[in-house]
């Protein structure tokens, strides 16, 4: 799961409390399930252990909610790398693409370039699948069709996303 990278993205705007991170996440994905507090704190703890975030302020008597976290240089590099790589065009990876795309737009990354790379990755996958005919058993062609149709759906959604992103760039 990419919750860790999302938390890095949410901190990229400046140091914040765990509570701010949760609220930021819920604002980024308005129609999705809210991020649980417990998950925020375990993620922040893990990120701190790995040196990707650091504690910059701790109020006295501090429970976890009184701690302010900030991105480290290493954390920022990790975030950038994550936003650069397209998601492997595999089954069930669409959520990950959405996370990256939202994070890229919200953190001021090159979202259009990300979409272009993601499209290329998907198109390449479709071509590979088309070049290798499915096995002639009862279910393989069905599975193949499923994958291609979903990749196609992702691509159409990415098309629309690209248009929106370009429009925002123009209107800004």
């Amino acid at each position, binding site marked *: 799961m990419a919750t860790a990278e999302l938390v890095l993205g949410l901190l990229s705007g400046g140091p914040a409390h765990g509570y701010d991170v949760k609220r930021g996440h819920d604002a980024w994905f308005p129609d999705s399930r809210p991020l649980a507090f417990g998950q925020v704190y375990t993620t922040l703890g893990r990120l701190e252990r790995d040196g990707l975030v650091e504690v910059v302020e701790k109020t006295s008597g501090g429970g976890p909610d009184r701690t302010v976290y900030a991105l480290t240089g290493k954390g920022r590099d990790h975030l950038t790398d994550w936003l650069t790589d397209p998601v492997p065009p595999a089954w069930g990876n669409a959520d990950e693409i959405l996370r990256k795309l939202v994070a890229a737009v919200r953190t001021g990354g090159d979202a*259009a*370039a990300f979409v*272009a*790379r993601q*499209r*290329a990755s*998907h*198109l*390449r996958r*479709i*071509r590979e699948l*088309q070049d290798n005919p499915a096995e002639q058993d009862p279910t393989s062609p069905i599975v193949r069709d499923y994958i*291609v149709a979903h*990749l*196609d759906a992702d*691509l*159409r959604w990415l*098309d629309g996303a*690209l*248009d929106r992103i*370009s429009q925002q760039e123009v209107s800004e």
Partner: protein
Amino acid sequence: MTTPALELTDIEYKYRRNVALRGVSLQINPGEIVAITGASGCGKSTLLHCAAGILTPDAGAVRVNGQELASLSADDRAALRRTQIGVVLQFGQLVPDVKLVDNVALPLLLAGHSRSEAHVQALEWLKQVGIEGEADAVPAELSGGQNQRAAVARALVTGPSIVLADEPTGSLDSRAGKELLEVLVQAARYRGTALVMVTHDNLVAASATREIRLRDGVVQHEVVL
């Protein structure tokens, strides 16, 4: 360095009020398969028509195998188009009252080949695209998919260095579209012809090795697939 099969430099094209292309440059290498994508109205069909010499751009240069179209006389330009460029449109490109074999043979007939000679090649290409049995039918008697196959055969019959296809599967259902795409790509590979397809269909774009995406008359991005 090899000469590009097709090279467009700063192409601009205006319809009465709408600017369709505002400075598009691209290169297509011999044997390459390229998809030109973008939303409706982004100028992709106009670009293809400029490349095919159907439209004359307001500014910029079109070079086919290094020959600039504008520098040629009308006759030489027509001859170049006839021998070096094949065109496949969405539909309706066949001459309605002419038999399929003659329709496919047309570019050769126009180039002055004898009827029998042209027919031999036309029949061979009809076979290549899988409709040799319909040689004597006229377009109205056949399905959309069969007509498009004939259009593919006609685009390739002169052995052009580049085939330009504008939404070649646009008028077909997904199965017929998929079959036509296979025929088109295979025919292009068989001849080593560069193929440029304008499409909004991702499955068509996926058969390309490069995607050029247009937006509002400019190249938005170009990625290798």
